[in-house]
């Protein structure tokens, strides 16, 4: 039975397969480092290791959420390339797949790191492709350009 962690950050809902969630922290301190890629807001320190904190707002064309969630969760997720973290509001929950409805996505959404949608109690959550996002958001393929409406790939 597959289960998802369902989270929200601002208006954006996102789902992460439970098996990929390594840890959920609350109130961890963030640190900005020089020359972080545009979609990496900061790093946090967990068990003596640095974890890149990705700004999901830049992926799906939302305005950056980086300023908001000082009291939210930090969701640490395993990727093939190391652990990454996402910010989330204090509304997270774990839900079994059969409790909601899975749906397909457009090609454009797939290109933005979403592999599907999960509808739960009338709310829509983007199922994230963590490996794709980890690479795309940390290797400079995404830029923070609010004037262009969010995420844009380098040409």
């Amino acid at each position, binding site marked *: 039975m597959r289960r998802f962690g369902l989270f929200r950050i601002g208006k954006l809902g996102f789902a992460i397969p439970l098996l990929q969630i390594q840890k959920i922290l609350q109130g961890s301190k963030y640190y900005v*480092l*020089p020359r972080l890629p545009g979609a990496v807001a900061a*790093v946090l320190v967990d068990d003596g290791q640095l974890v890149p904190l990705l700004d999901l707002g830049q992926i799906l064309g939302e305005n950056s959420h980086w300023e908001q969630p000082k009291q939210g969760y930090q969701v640490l997720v395993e990727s093939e390339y190391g652990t*990454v973290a996402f910010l989330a509001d204090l509304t997270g929950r774990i839900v079994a797949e059969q409790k909601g409805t899975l749906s397909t996505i457009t090609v454009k959404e797939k290109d933005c790191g979403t592999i599907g949608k999960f509808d739960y109690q009338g709310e829509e959550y983007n199922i994230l492709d963590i490996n794709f996002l980890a690479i795309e958001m940390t290797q400079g393929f995404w830029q923070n350009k609010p004037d262009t409406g969010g995420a844009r790939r380098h040409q």
Partner: protein
Amino acid sequence: MTVAGNRNLIFRLGGIGFLLELADVVEVVSQITEALDPGRSDIGQGIVSALQFRQTWVPVVDPALKLDVFSAVKLKDKAAIILHGSEGNWALLVDQVEELSAVENFKPCEVPFLLKVAAMGFYSQIKLLHNEPMIVFDPECYYGSNAVSA
């Protein structure tokens, strides 16, 4: 102040912590305004000014330019760390010199694989001090024949 011993010097730039091994540190100068000559700059080399130090002029390098760090600290409030390099003394412009800390207080910490490309050429080592990441500052990346222009 003159510095020595088996400790690291902590300085800040744009709120970010850096550590500097003391081997190359000559002195920390906290009042620099009167000793600066901004006319002697070479921005291509990262040199923003010259500083009169011990009856001679030494180049002043602002690492914030290369690191793309925003600093809200005004020039008159900054400090200079005088370093001894292969081409003589030079000054590193920083927001604040914070403290000296014993080397054993720092714990090694790897730059995450996903951030290595972005950090390449700017820093390669990070250590934790009280669980805060401190970037190991490599002077040779910023001034001298091995430095690469920003």
